[in-house]
């Protein structure tokens, strides 16, 4: 009887070991499948793009089709760069941040202060829904509001507004979550010193949660950095550097789209994408560092 039990036990155990190994292998395989696209993307961008990257690529404007065509025909490096796109992207990100950060942080503070109240729950849900709105729809909205009525034409401002709306929910959420992690006793300590409410927020809560807020903002920026669809309907694009917010402006992702549509400039796609990818990755890593520092 005992011997019988022992054998059945052994049989089961060998089955389990096999199952265990199978699952382990599956997990490793799926992990490799998950990270392989990003590895392949970076590899492809680097191999195809690094030839074009030079100082000129960063400080020169986009070439015209003819110059590019000549260079391609002579098998030379395509002249010009994406300075107009870089400057436009920077301009719109600064403007979008200037709109989204104050509004987002204040909304986050409101949600934190009014936990469980109906109005706060409503705002939180709407903000979550906003996060799911397709970016092209935000572009359309900004087109209707800004392009048609404020700047009377495609403009950096319109692009910034659509990007700001995209950033907003991320900043709201990260502000609220960060503030929730600050011990309530710190707020009480400040209030017990007779500090007025706004000083408690500005001088105690925000400095204490600074790194958390920054993480949210950086992730928000890295999200809008590569947005193309809303900019097509708002900023349109420009072949020269433009600093006037009421005028059409270029952006790196817009340029990539333009390059794609121009057979002569297709060689510039890779280098522009590489640069964009490098920015996004850097921002992500920096914001992860901030988040890690907080713990």
């Amino acid at each position, binding site marked *: 009887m005992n011997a019988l039990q022992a054998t059945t036990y052994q049989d089961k155990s060998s089955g389990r070991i096999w199952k265990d190994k199978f699952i382990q292998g599956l997990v490793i395989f799926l992990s490799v499948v998950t990270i392989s696209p990003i590895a392949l993307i970076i590899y492809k961008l680097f191999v195809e793009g690094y030839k074009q990257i030079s100082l000129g690529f960063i400080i020169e404007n986009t070439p015209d089709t003819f110059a590019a065509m000549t260079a391609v025909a002579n098998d030379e490096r395509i002249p010009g760069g994406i300075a107009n796109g870089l400057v436009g992207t920077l301009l719109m990100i600064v403007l979008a941040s200037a709109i989204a950060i104050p509004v987002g942080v204040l909304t986050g503070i409101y949600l934190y202060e009014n936990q469980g109240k109906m109005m706060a729950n409503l705002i939180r849900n709407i903000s979550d829904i906003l996060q799911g709105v397709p970016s092209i729809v935000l572009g359309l909205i900004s087109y209707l509001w800004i392009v048609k009525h404020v700047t009377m034409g495609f403009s950096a401002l319109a692009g910034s507004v659509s990007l700001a709306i995209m950033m907003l929910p991320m900043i709201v959420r990260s502000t609220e979550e960060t503030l929730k992690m600050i011990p309530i*006793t710190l707020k009480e300590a400040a209030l017990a010193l007779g500090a007025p409410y706004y000083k408690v927020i500005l001088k105690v809560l925000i400095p204490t949660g600074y790194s958390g807020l920054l993480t949210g903002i950086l992730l928000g920026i890295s999200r809008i950095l590569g947005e193309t669809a809303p900019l097509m309907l708002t900023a349109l694009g420009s072949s020269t550097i433009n600093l006037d917010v009421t005028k059409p402006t270029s952006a790196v992702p817009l340029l990539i789209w333009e390059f794609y549509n121009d057979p002569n400039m297709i060689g510039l796609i890779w280098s522009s994408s590489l640069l964009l990818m490098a920015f996004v990755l850097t921002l992500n890593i920096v914001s992860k560092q901030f988040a890690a520092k907080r713990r």
Partner: protein
Amino acid sequence: MTQTIAEIKNPALSIRDLSIAYDKNYAVKNVTVDIKKNTVTAIMGPSGCGKSTLLRALNRMHELYENITTEGKVLLHEENIYDMSTIKLRRQMGMVFQRPNPFPTMSIFDNVIAGYKLNGNSLKKKEKDEIVERSLRDVALWDEVKDSLHKKGTFLSGGQQQRLCIARALAFGPEIILMDEPTSALDPIATSKVEDLLVKLKEHYTIILVTHNMSQAARISDYSLFMYLGELVEYGKTKNMFTNPKDPRTEQYLTGKFG
């Protein structure tokens, strides 16, 4: 048996018929008491008896909670604190919390003068230095931290942090210091340092202390309030209360029958 006050001449604080309710559940019921100047007054009682609520009502920190109703008066210099601005009131009533809570983004120096900073009072450098040194000397922390004033306050030990928080409360020159179980998060050595400090501080300040620890109340307080289920059961000199409690509930609590 709630009327156990001895009317004291020129009290630091007079609490009159104070009742506080959360969502209509009374946490403090009809408390009337005078707090004597330059004493340590301990508020004792089992958990949930309303002692922390009573303490927080004295600088109106209880208003941070929702759905709270407050009835009655608390007179500070014959002025009802519920008619004062909280900013003015809290300048006269320092508060020290259960756990040390120095501001983590500020240096030791800035923590001490945080009250001025947060109220937007600009001080000259000399005034700041004087206030910081005086307050830190008052809490016997000066010698320990004078060389690291510009380091973050959170690097100090728990006991040092708590003394820093007391210094922060003293810096404003309040009359009354409210303490909510200030030593419950500290080890015995740090506790005895804070206790020694409280006995010294009563020369200049009136201290109201909530404590869970009866022997602490016996060691350092001059007057004791015993609360039970929101009522003030007994109030008197600590010595008398511990040796000869008048109310049977006080006696039961002090002898460890409940609490």
